[in-house]
């Protein structure tokens, strides 16, 4: 059975080559050199990476990459001298020349921070043999922004907290978590749209705490949060009103001819809850998660290989949802 609350786990390591200035001080020639060095070094890794120069990626594809959490919005906006290395399943991606020379990212489904870190760690160690990352015995791995000093590691867990969000407990929890050095945000960090109750929890402190402890802390908190979410769901499910809301959400998704992204996300969130609570049994969580990832505007347009007007997008979205849920 898939985890009803935890959707995915992500590890990101920030690394810089010690012999080059950080990206804010680099010229074009240095950017190209760094990208080329990383490309060479990646050949020693067990994984097979596709190497994409961002200058060759059109805007639509770049935005779709942001929607799939492969790259940051900023990385998609300014592409000069930047490159992306990514495995075929997109679970491992490396942004080159973003805020740091390398941003190594590993995403795994469910609660799998340790597993994701193990992969990121192995790639980091392999790359360091030839790239020689900037490191200081006191400050740890050196990064362009001091907020990433130390381990350079950001661990995050994406959770579906619909019952806690419904009882308005999330903002209270978020302020308590910030005291523990953790941050709670909407799915895309910067654009905190949480109508679909998808939240991202991550560590904030990277200096003075080891990777292992940071991961354990985050995992402990997420486990506690997941169990309190499950408890709240039990209470919520006793209300006939909420059961009705879930069934109606499914009804709209199956019959709508036009549907906006925000509405679809909200309804899919209800349906996801319905599946985990046994109210809906003919749709899988995987199908819902897959839809949540593929109904973003640029991803829809990419699938159709053309620009769509907002109304055309709403239509394409409604069709995709119907076809998947039926």
């Amino acid at each position, binding site marked *: 059975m898939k985890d009803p609350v935890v959707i995915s786990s992500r590890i990101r390591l920030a690394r810089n080559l010690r012999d080059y200035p950080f990206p804010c001080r680099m010229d074009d020639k240095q950017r190209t050199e760094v990208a080329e060095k990383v490309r060479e070094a990646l050949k020693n890794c067990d994984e097979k990476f596709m190497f994409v120069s961002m200058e060759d990626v059109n805007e639509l594809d770049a935005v779709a990459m942001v929607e799939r959490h492969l790259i940051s919005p900023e990385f998609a906006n300014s592409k000069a001298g930047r490159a992306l290395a990514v495995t075929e399943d997109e679970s491992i991606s490396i942004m080159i020349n973003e805020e740091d020379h390398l941003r190594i990212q590993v995403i795994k489904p469910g609660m799998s921070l340790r597993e994701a870190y193990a992969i990121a760690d192995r790639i980091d160690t392999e790359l360091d043999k030839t790239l020689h990352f900037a490191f200081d015995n006191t400050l740890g791995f050196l990064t362009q*922004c*001091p907020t990433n000093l130390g*381990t350079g590691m950001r661990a995050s867990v994406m959770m579906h907290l619909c019952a806690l969000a419904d009882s308005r407990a999330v903002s209270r929890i978020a302020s308590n978590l910030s005291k523990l050095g953790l941050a709670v945000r909407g799915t895309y960090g910067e654009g905190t749209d949480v109508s679909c109750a998808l939240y991202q929890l991550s560590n904030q402190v990277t200096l003075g705490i080891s990777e292992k402890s940071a991961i354990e802390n985050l995992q402990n908190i997420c486990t506690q949060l997941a169990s309190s979410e499950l408890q709240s769901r039990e209470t919520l499910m006793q209300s006939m009103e909420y059961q009705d809301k879930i069934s109606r959400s499914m009804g709209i998704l199956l019959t709508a001819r036009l549907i906006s*992204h925000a509405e679809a996300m909200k309804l899919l969130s209800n349906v996801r809850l319905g599946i985990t609570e046994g109210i809906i049994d003919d749709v899988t969580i995987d199908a819902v998660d897959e839809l949540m990832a593929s109904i973003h505007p640029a991803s829809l347009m990419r699938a159709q290989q053309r620009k769509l007007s*907002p109304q055309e997008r709403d239509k394409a979205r409604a069709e995709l949802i119907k076809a998947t849920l039926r």
Partner: protein
Amino acid sequence: MKCQKCKVNNATTQVKRIVNGAYEEYMLCADCAHEMGFDNVFDTAMPDMFGGLVKSLFGTALPSRSQATRCPSCGSTYGDITNTGKVGCAKCYTTFFSELLPSVKRIHGNTTHCGKRPNMALAEESVANQKEDQIGILKTQLNKAVEEQNFELAAELRDKIKEMEGK
């Protein structure tokens, strides 16, 4: 540049976001940014926050110890770092170590790394290099102190260099 919303105040906050698949970027003043809820949810607000943080810290702190004005490796000044919130290169951390340390402490509550270390041999090499760098910086400061006839500081620096070279 004027704020794109009120068109009166100077813009201090840059907002970048993706709406319906299209990238948007605009500049706002602090008031409008606050009004629109963009003052602390965005990662992009971090550099400003950090810059402000460093400045507020140094407004009341003791004058900095290292008097290096420019990073010998990338040419960044300490002002560049506080204004952009971005450190120029790995050497900047050695050059402006004493200036940066208080803000590092404020951000992380800690100043000593704990966790993964790269290949040990390399780490040791970096210690040696770092020590050499620090001695170099101290020597430059010593020359400057002598030039300025600040002999008290010069004596202090001389002792420090001796101590470091002795180790």
